[in-house]
């Protein structure tokens, strides 16, 4: 499509594109750039490729064959050992529980609060908003020790709720949902008021349905964050059966058994569903991941 346009343009006609080069050299530039990006893409895929071919090698061949670029053998032995000698499936379930419940809770709480800050004028609104936003500057790790002490004292240690509850109130989520709701037409809301709907009905039946794209964007962002997090769940969870994947896999590294095969198999199984989900929902993913970029533009 692009190519046809470029080729059909007469020599010397500038294209309204970033690279304002001319006809003849254009094709060469294109070829060069396309080849370059093919190379870049291959390098970025390499670790995935290596993970995939290593996972299906017999455990004793993984180190020996590490330098072999081609798939040398195929066995599911690593996956069998992985599932037999670790509560891997349980870790997987735990990761899903943590990611989904954290994201759902956080999105709910942030949307409710974002709604209040976006649409109501009340005393202390600005102060509150800036205080919450200002706390975003403070790194989570400052509160790592105090939070741990709270979790220990309240008996939330080694519980899902202990991992989730302290991080549900995300200033970023609040900020994002506030911006999002401010973008919703006031006329719809005022019309609801004229019809005599209560404030809660207006939220539930007018605002909430319109918020769905914004909510799903931060839902994805937050669930990926939780899926990837290591240190906080590592501190809160004490029992192997309650670990999420990240903590379980990290624990496998520090044991004395030689676990290359199992680790690579476990890593592969942890990665494939995420990539499949991404390929299916790429638009939502990219919106979710770039919401911070969107905010900057506002």
């Amino acid at each position, binding site marked *: 499509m*692009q190519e046809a346009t470029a080729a059909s343009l007469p020599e010397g006609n500038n*294209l309204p*594109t*970033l690279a304002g*080069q001319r006809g003849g050299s*254009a094709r060469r*530039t*294109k070829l060069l750039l396309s080849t370059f*990006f093919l190379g*870049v*893409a291959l390098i*970025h*895929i*390499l*670790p*995935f490729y290596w993970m995939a071919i290593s996972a299906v090698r017999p455990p004793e061949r993984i*180190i020996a064959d*590490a*330098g072999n*670029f081609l798939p040398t053998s195929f066995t599911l032995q690593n996956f069998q050992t992985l599932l037999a000698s670790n509560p891997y499936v349980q870790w997987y379930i735990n990761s899903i529980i943590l990611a989904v419940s954290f994201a759902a809770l956080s999105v*709910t*709480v942030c949307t*409710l609060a974002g709604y*209040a800050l976006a649409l*109501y004028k*009340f005393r202390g609104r600005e102060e*509150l908003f800036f205080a919450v936003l200002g706390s975003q500057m*403070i*790194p989570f*790790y*400052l*509160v790592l*020790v*105090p*939070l*741990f*002490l709270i979790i*220990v004292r309240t008996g939330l240690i080694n519980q899902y709720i202990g991992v989730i*509850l302290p991080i*549900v*109130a995300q*200033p970023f989520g609040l900020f994002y949902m506030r911006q999002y709701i401010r973008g919703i037409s006031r006329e719809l809301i005022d019309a609801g008021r004229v019809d005599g709907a209560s404030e*809660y009905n207006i939220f539930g039946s007018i605002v909430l349905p319109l918020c769905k794209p914004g909510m799903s964007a931060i839902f994805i962002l937050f669930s990926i964050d939780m899926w990837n997090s*290591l240190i906080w769940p590592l501190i809160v969870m004490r029992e192997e059966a309650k670990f999420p994947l*990240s903590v379980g896999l990290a624990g496998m*590294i*520090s044991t004395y058994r030689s676990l*290359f095969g199992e680790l*690579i198999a476990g*890593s592969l199984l942890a*990665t494939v569903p*995420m990539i499949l989900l*991404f390929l299916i929902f*790429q638009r939502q993913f*990219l919106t979710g*991941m*770039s919401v*911070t*970029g969107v905010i*900057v533009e506002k």
Partner: protein
Amino acid sequence: MTLRSAKTPFLHRPSVVPWVFLAPFLLLFLTFSLYPILNAFYLSVSQMESITSLPQFVGLANYAKLWNDPSFWKALNNTLLYTVGVLLTLIPIPLIYAALLQSGWVKGAHSYRLILFTPLLTSLVVATIVFRYMLGPEGFINAILNFFSLPPQRWVEVGTYAMPICVLIAFWRWTGMNIVYFQSGLNNIPKELFEAAALDGASGLQSFYFVTLPLLKPIVIFVVTISLIGSLQVIVEPYILYGAMAGPGESALTMMFYLYMVAFQRLNFGYAAAIGVVLAILIMAVSLVQFRFFGFFSQED
């Protein structure tokens, strides 16, 4: 908001409604953010005998100890090294990639964006495990070196490579994300500006330099800031690569790693809190510089 009569039920009063919506967030925020923040400062000037004992005020003793602690300086040094490495790679390269992919001169640009994005979907733990084995003595990377007749390296055993390897992992994972950020900035540049530049006879490079870069400044500053804040808190990569002892000669010890070690291996909570405060001050200084440059709140009414 329309004023209702005084008979309005409590939860429906205009003065009460916003607080009902705010309540869940606020309660959690006060309990799990505001209180711990204040508590962190208090703990940093205290000593705790055990998890259950009450903190005892010791003044600035923890900070004085920190000043004279070679491990702390080593950790700070490593963290800054990593941060500089991330900024030098993860800003210019994705920016150039984004501009090229946007130019319409790369066939299948969208698929490349997707491919470069996928590494971010591996968790940091998985990514680091993979790199750890690829960089092993008889690993994939050494095999590639061997293929080009270069001598193999002891990547993960030698401390010198610790921070560069962490930068490499960050680069692998984040290139695609930063392309997405820069691309969202590029999309907001009006096409007419490029047309005008082209009419004025500007080459591709010239319009990149004179049109694209100045207009991308806000997003560049934004990406620099989040990269800085993220980098200063690096812990998972060195933890997975080099284990609980942070590698030979603490070569993989970062600020966060040290905080983690002090708190959860040595159970010295007061001292760990002091490290946290120093790290927080560093990060807040960075954020404030960003606000000055960039005015995060400038669009507010």
